[in-house]
């Protein structure tokens, strides 16, 4: 619809606007270029697009552009190019952000609430309930809610009326002012807009992809085929082709005229009917090409039977374990437990969608702006796929709006953008919409685990796990295998199966396999403790040989909420409270090839590394590691560019233990080089000792412009777990991280709602480089675990295989009102063999959360949930039994 000329006051300036955008967000982002306002859900659910209309926050994705006529519009840019609003300052000081993609929306809603609150309640501090209700129209997938709540309370109480000191996160100012540029915000002259044609069938041979009509449509520059050589689509929504056109609207129009001819094949849409169902992969080559949701080493090779892959078996005296379990079942041993646990598929749904802007130039260079967790790896993967020299390929990701594992590999957006750019001879940007993101943009596979365990009280005597992964066309769920790494060395048989179906694939998601593993095993341990009438922490302490986790058990046991928790199911009222515990461990991965370059520039230090920041704080970690070696010196950090020295993928919790030691190594090298330059006798954190006294670093730097060193990550003391194994730069280090979660819930036995009230999260990951950011990431891990436990569930239509939860209304992630009060406790010893003494925490901190919720629900009600999510209907059904 043509809007016609409108008069709008935009950020204080009267403007005449003539734009045919239908909604305000399109006008603001595409028409006015004010990209601080983000478009995420398009349905008014997430609030990322919030702006002020006449001073009141509204969702601009639902606001008709015509509604702006005659009114005053304020975007985040209108609050100022520096963080001047008290709530912006408070967000920086409380670190109420991670990736920053939702931040402008929160800033707009919070600033409006702040202004109104101060006018109506001068000097008062709003309570948690008031601020969470005010911000209930906003979602943060990183889970930075604790910081946001504290920030809004503090700003309203007048604590941030003056500028505060340096924020804990170095790029915070760019994120709270909306000036941080993400891939979806990048435009270049002549840029085309690419869209993807997706399968309308769950399983079909594609006989014809007719792009002629689309190519003839006005504004269309290129159309490319994306289908593999076997010309088969195996899930509803699978990419088939892509087109590029001058505007999003012309691209949408052209998409509608692409004709795809299908010959339908019978589809396998249900894991329970997989036996005798149509076969998804009919030959070895197809099976080999199946995508995997595993992280780290590739899934163990195994055999296939129709759609069932496996078992991939890891055993410690496995036959003995089964014999012991069978005998225990036979004699009804009180220490024997058998139960089935199920988890739902959980979507990553990072708020910045997958996006790539590809510019393939005639000179052979290919520049990509990509929302990726791995600029260096993506550069290499792109070079390999299109047979380019890696030096011709440049991958840029200045800011990344979340990833959680879904942006580690080369994804469809990148393939489509590169192919289209080559075909069109122009830069092309491909941005997935929220539905695409929720269909195949990434998910953790659903699982069913058959658990059998036996104890004689003192130890876990025998264990058998059979896990059936439900990752659609993908394999590699790897759940049962994790049973090899904990609770002693008793006999155990661990078998992983994947049941493939014609449903969209999964991919690695934060601690892949770990959360479903803990959901089954940690509830099993809890149940055995309960039957024995024993404290579940005491039981774990006896079974678990991990010394670092013992330290966490000791602290957890002493918590008043644990000591005073009372017997299970002792409440009688409508609202029943319970406290549950669960533990986890995880691998220690690192990228041993990581290097950080450090140079003196303008009296400051500049650190460079081809790492990226998806919200976990890579810039701040490098700045901190360097800054500790150079007192008083300002450190600039340039990351997010594959041209820098090699950096790690942000995945497998490997970023910090890779970049921090490399940054320290660089700083030490530079200190030595500068010492020699100025003729000093020794160099310390404060400066260079010379005959005439200590020369402080800021002064030394002014004389050493251009000095340059490169520090290397180096080896751990004692080497790595598998000395010669390096998989795409990844190495497996010695030792495993540990976590213990103590969780308090309240179950509404009338309406079936479960609320998580408080979580104590104990983490044994060694030295913490940046405490506030580490706490933020740990809090976010808890919140994602709460989502996994209570709300999140990817659903598909059983008749067509189409993903139904394709928007953020139907796919439910935790909101700010669902945030428990979270205490994060770090046990910092036990990693002395790692340079710097600490490892990553993003995965281990989320794995045990859902299991601790399940155990708390059992403690509150006496009913043990076995299937995720713990929905109200399941609670009511369980309590009625």
């Amino acid at each position: 619809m043509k809007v016609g000329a409108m008069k709008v006051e935009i950020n204080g300036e009267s403007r005449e606007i003539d734009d045919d955008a239908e909604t305000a967000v399109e006008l603001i982002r595409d028409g006015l270029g004010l990209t601080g306002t983000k478009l995420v859900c398009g349905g008014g659910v997430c609030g990322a697009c919030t702006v002020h209309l006449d001073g009141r926050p509204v969702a601009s994705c639902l606001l008709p552009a015509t509604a702006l006529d005659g009114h005053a519009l304020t975007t985040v840019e209108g609050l100022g190019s520096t963080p001047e609003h008290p709530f912006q300052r408070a967000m920086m000081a409380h670190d109420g952000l991670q990736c920053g993609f939702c931040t402008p929306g929160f800033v707009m809603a919070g600033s409006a609430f702040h202004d109104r609150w101060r006018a109506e309640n001068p000097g008062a501090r709003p309570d948690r309930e008031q601020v969470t209700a005010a911000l209930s129209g906003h979602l943060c997938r990183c889970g930075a809610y604790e910081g946001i709540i504290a920030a809004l309370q503090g700003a309203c109480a007048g604590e941030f009326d003056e500028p505060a000191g340096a924020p804990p996160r170095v790029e915070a100012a760019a994120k709270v002012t909306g000036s941080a540029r993400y891939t979806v915000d990048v435009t270049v002259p002549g840029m085309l807009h690419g869209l993807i044609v997706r399968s309308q069938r769950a399983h079909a041979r594609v006989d014809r992809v007719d792009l002629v009509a689309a190519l003839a449509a006005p504004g269309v520059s290129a159309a490319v085929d994306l289908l593999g050589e076997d010309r088969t689509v195996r899930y509803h929504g699978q990419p088939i082709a892509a087109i590029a056109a001058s505007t999003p609207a012309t691209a949408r129009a052209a998409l509608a005229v692409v004709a795809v001819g299908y010959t339908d094949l019978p589809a396998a849409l249900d894991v329970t009917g997989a036996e005798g169902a149509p076969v998804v992969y009919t030959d070895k080559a197809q099976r080999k090409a199946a995508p995997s949701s595993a992280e780290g080493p590739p899934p163990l090779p195994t055999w296939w039977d129709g759609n069932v892959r496996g078992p991939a078996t890891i055993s410690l005296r496995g036959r003995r374990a089964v014999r012991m379990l069978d005998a225990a079942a036979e004699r009804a041993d009180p220490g024997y437990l058998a139960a089935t646990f199920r988890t739902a598929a959980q979507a990553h749904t990072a708020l910045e969608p997958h996006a790539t802007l590809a510019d393939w130039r005639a000179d052979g260079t290919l520049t990509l702006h990509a929302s990726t967790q791995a600029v260096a790896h993506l550069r290499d993967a792109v070079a390999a796929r299109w047979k380019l020299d890696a030096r011709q390929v440049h991958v840029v990701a200045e800011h990344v709006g979340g990833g959680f594992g879904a942006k580690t590999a080369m994804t469809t957006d990148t393939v489509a953008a590169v192919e289209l750019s080559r075909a069109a001879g122009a830069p092309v940007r491909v941005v997935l919409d929220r539905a695409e993101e929720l269909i195949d943009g990434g998910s953790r596979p659903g699982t069913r685990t058959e658990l059998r365990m036996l104890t004689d009280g003192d130890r876990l005597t025998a264990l058998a796990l059979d896990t059936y992964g439900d990752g659609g066309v993908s394999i590699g769920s790897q759940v049962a295998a994790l049973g090899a790494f904990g609770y002693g060395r008793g006999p155990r048989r661990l078998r992983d199966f994947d049941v493939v179906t014609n449903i969209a694939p999964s991919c690695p998601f934060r601690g892949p396999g770990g959360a479903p593993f803990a959901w089954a095993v940690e509830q099993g341990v809890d149940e055995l403790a309960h039957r024995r009438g024993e404290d579940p922490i005491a039981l774990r302490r006896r079974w678990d040989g991990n010394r670092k986790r013992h330290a966490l058990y000791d602290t957890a046991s002493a918590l008043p909420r644990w000591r005073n928790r009372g017997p299970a199911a002792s409440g009688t009222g409508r609202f029943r409270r319970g406290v549950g515990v669960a533990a986890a461990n995880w691998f220690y991965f690192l990228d041993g090839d990581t290097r950080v370059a450090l140079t003196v520039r303008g009296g400051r230090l500049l650190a460079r590394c081809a790492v990226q920041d998806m919200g976990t704080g890579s810039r701040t970690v490098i700045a901190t590691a360097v800054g500790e070696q150079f007192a008083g010196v300002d450190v600039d950090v340039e990351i997010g560019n594959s041209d820098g020295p090699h950096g790690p993928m942000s995945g497998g919790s490997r970023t910090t233990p890779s970049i921090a030691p490399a940054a320290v190594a660089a700083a030490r090298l530079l200190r030595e080089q500068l010492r020699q330059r100025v003729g000093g006798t020794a160099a310390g954190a404060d400066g260079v000792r010379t005959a005439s006294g200590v020369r402080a670093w800021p002064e030394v730097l002014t004389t050493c412009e251009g000095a340059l060193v490169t520090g290397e990550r180096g080896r751990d003391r004692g080497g790595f777990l598998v000395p010669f194994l390096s998989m795409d730069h990844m190495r497996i280090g010695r030792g495993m991280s540990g976590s213990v979660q103590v969780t308090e819930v309240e179950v509404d036995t009338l309406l079936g709602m479960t609320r998580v009230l408080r979580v104590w999260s104990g983490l044994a990951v060694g030295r913490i480089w940046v405490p506030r950011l580490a706490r933020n990431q740990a809090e976010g891990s808890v919140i994602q675990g709460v989502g996994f436990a209570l709300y999140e569930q990817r659903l598909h239509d059983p008749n067509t295989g189409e993903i139904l939860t394709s928007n953020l209304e139907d796919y439910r992630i935790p909101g700010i009102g669902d945030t428990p009060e979270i205490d994060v406790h770090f046990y910092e010893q036990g990693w002395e063999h790692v340079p710097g003494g600490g490892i990553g925490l993003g995965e281990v901190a989320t794995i045990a959360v859902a299991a601790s919720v399940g155990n708390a629900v059992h403690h509150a009600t006496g009913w043990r949930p076995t299937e995720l999510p713990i929905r109200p209907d399941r609670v009511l059904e369980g309590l009625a039994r």
Partner: protein
Amino acid sequence: MTAFITAAATIGEFRAGGTDLSERRRSGRSTGPLVDLTGLPGLAEITPTPDGGVRIGALVTVEQMARDLSGYPALAATAAALATPEIRAVATVGGNLLQHTRCTYYRNPAFSCVKSGGDGCPARTGVAHHGVADDRGPCVAPHPSSIGMALLTYDAVVEVSGGPARTVAALFGDGSDGTRDHQLGDREILTAIVLPPPLPGERGAYERATSRRFAEWPLVEAVARISVTEGRITTVRVGVGGVAPVPLRLVGVESLLLDGAPDGPLAAAAAAATDGLRPLPHTAYKLPLLRAVVLDVLHRALTGPDQDAAGAPRP
């Protein structure tokens, strides 16, 4: 009046706040031209009527309703509980009544159903967890209007430009017409809702059953209005949503309570909430849930303070 005639004569789908329609434009359930109603005069106000009631213009926002209708606590509480602050700031009461179903199949362009101009209902053989608990017609999606549910308990009348005024019950029909979410004629424009005066000393309560704390469409919801005179319940009205293709008023529950003592057996009355309902195979869980929500609002409307057992304020 001319403005209404001009609007009605313009080809296109009517748009007020746009909070439902903008989403349907994205999901392909609205494709034609649009006619903005936001400029129509006199529709954005709440005005007193001569008999002591109020006339709520169709363009009054949900936020205004939540804030400015303190004489109608059940309605105000319902308005305050729906959607998010950003939506409530611009969503209109007229749009709330006339919004389309939130059914995931309806909003997904890959599917066709009786409501989107096709045949049948893919939810019946698909995922219908959020479907109705009373199967009344070809469409199994519950009606999305919480405000419509609340208005049913007030004998409210809607005024219509281009047609006669009608009751809210008549606006929605009986739920057997699966092709549409309301029974307003094509070129009719809903202009206002007229409420009778509040009851003396009336109390109200609203509750929705959800997974999350805020901002989620209800599995089931209920609203109750009660007034007690000289130790007897002299008026009681109960409305429920999430149950049928239209909002429902539970006359059966009301009749069990009327003239009774306020400390009488509420559970027995609430148990009647599901009498005669015909759930789908996947929505049988809604029956106990509905009884629970009805019991909760009755209890809270009678006992007053909106508090839960632990003393924390409820949303």
